């Protein structure tokens, strides 16, 4: 499990508008990579190209290559459905399926890929995934209750359990804590620390302290102005980015001078 991602000359478009320009980045397997930058700089848009979720929006398209252990996600004949089953995603707002129980939420992705599963296998997987998401002890007595009855932080961990239940190669997180309180945020950050032993984790965050706490490497994105495309300004080891960045814009941003 867990594969590396290499991105080559990636341009991302919404119709004719170029939202992200010329990104080259190499993301190691079993590491946490954080994307930081001001609002609208294209970091979330770029993240969504890594599992081909960008193209579900009308008119959205991508140029360039995203290699998952050398296989181009945008190669001809690649099925986006297969890509997404290998690269899981956690969204900004917790989104467990409200009509499903906690148990069914965890199994939702597995049921897509592997229709038949014995009850004992399913139970084991539910326990393993919820334990992996640090949620098992809180919900083990109410697995049949709807997922929407949990708190925001619990819902987000349920979404993480749902993502890891399918054993993905990579987990993408799009500002997973921005709708959560500090305690829930801490729980998720601890979880990210554990997840990186098994998965490649890429996280978009607005919170620079969070990036500094959880990530091994940090990528700083920026835009020159409204209507201009977002660019990857600097990418390197997290301590370097935060204490000794090469670019002036990175230093200004991480020191709080703008953004």
């Amino acid at each position, binding site marked *: 499990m867990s594969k590396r991602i290499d991105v080559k000359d990636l341009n991302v478009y919404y119709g004719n508008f170029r939202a992200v320009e010329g990104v080259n980045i190499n993301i190691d397997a079993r590491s946490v990579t954080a994307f930081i930058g001001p609002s609208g700089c294209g970091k979330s848009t770029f993240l969504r190209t890594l599992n081909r979720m960008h193209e579900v929006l009308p008119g959205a398209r991508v140029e360039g290559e995203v290699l998952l252990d050398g296989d181009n996600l945008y190669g001809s004949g690649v099925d986006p459905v297969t890509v997404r089953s290998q690269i899981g995603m956690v969204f900004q707002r917790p989104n467990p*399926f409200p009509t499903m129980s906690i148990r069914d939420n965890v199994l939702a992705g597995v049921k897509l890929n592997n229709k038949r599963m014995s009850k004992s296998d399913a139970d084991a997987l539910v326990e393993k995934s919820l334990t992996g998401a640090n949620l098992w002890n809180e919900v083990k007595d109410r697995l049949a209750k709807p997922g*929407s009855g949990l708190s925001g932080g619990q819902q987000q961990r349920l979404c993480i359990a749902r993502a890891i239940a399918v054993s993905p190669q990579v987990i993408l997180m799009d500002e997973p804590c921005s709708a959560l309180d500090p305690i829930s945020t801490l729980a998720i950050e601890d979880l990210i620390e554990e997840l990186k032993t098994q998965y490649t984790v890429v996280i978009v965050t607005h919170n620079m302290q969070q990036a500094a706490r959880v990530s091994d490497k940090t990528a700083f994105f920026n835009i020159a102005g409204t209507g201009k495309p977002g660019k990857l300004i600097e990418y390197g080891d997290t301590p370097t980015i935060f204490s000794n960045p090469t670019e002036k814009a990175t230093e200004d941003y991480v020191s709080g001078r703008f953004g």
Partner: protein
Amino acid sequence: MSQTLTETGRGRTGDKVFSGLTLAAGCLILFVLFCVAAFLLWQALPTFGADPSAISGGNGFWAYIWPIVIGTLIAAAIALVLATPVGVGVALFISHYAPRRLAQGLGYVVDLLAAIPSVVYGAWGIAVLAPALVGPYTWLAENAGWIPIFEGPASQTGKTMLTAGIVLSVMILPIITSLSREIFLQAPKLHEEAALAMGATRWEMIKMAVFPFARPGVISAVMLGLGRALGETMAVAMVLSGGGLIASLIKSGNQTIAAEVALNFPEAYGLRLSELIAAGLVLFVITLAVNMIARWIISRHKEFSGAN
């Protein structure tokens, strides 16, 4: 200039007027419903007290009403069975499959279907649909005649229960389609993306994120369609060559309550009039029951509806 706390601000009058108006509107609905029910009950009363031999058919009111209740339910059932899958399918195509420009045009055309008066549907049923169906009915009678509902000999005018049901299904199609489409469009993007992001195909995404969300709305849409199918008078009265209750849907026969009332009302007086109003009362009760069952179905899964 200072204002004391006990002073009432301006603009409160508008508030009062508006809340009064909404209250009045709410009460008016209840009042109208009550009046209709009271009228039906009052006018139908002589029928229930009358000597059974004086009722049409000579065997009492229940013997008279029973076949046309069944006829009404059969017509509505045919319409629902045909229109629900098509309506939901069209709605889904418009909301999730069609390119945006085509979807707009298609949605408009479907809404237009609802604007066609029922007498036009009736005329179309008689002039076009019924003759066109004579061939298929004959074929059905010959090849599937062992099934009671397709028992021959088939009607040679095509003015049968099945034809009426088909006309009704076309009439309720726009109701089911436009309501379902609105519900499908409101399915949360959040959950659709959640499904897609874990590797669901578009159909799997629809099963996971759209249908569960839309279920109560689609049931409501179907029930509204059913309400129209149960109460539709003109089209059935024109298309169906009515008669006694029979199992076969491709022979002349069967009748619906609405058509029975409409066809006989102009010449009715005295007890016959009361009888027809009693038939109307029965239809009213059936519609009420259908709506209550629908509400019950919707409320059964409240906890999982996503409203909490």
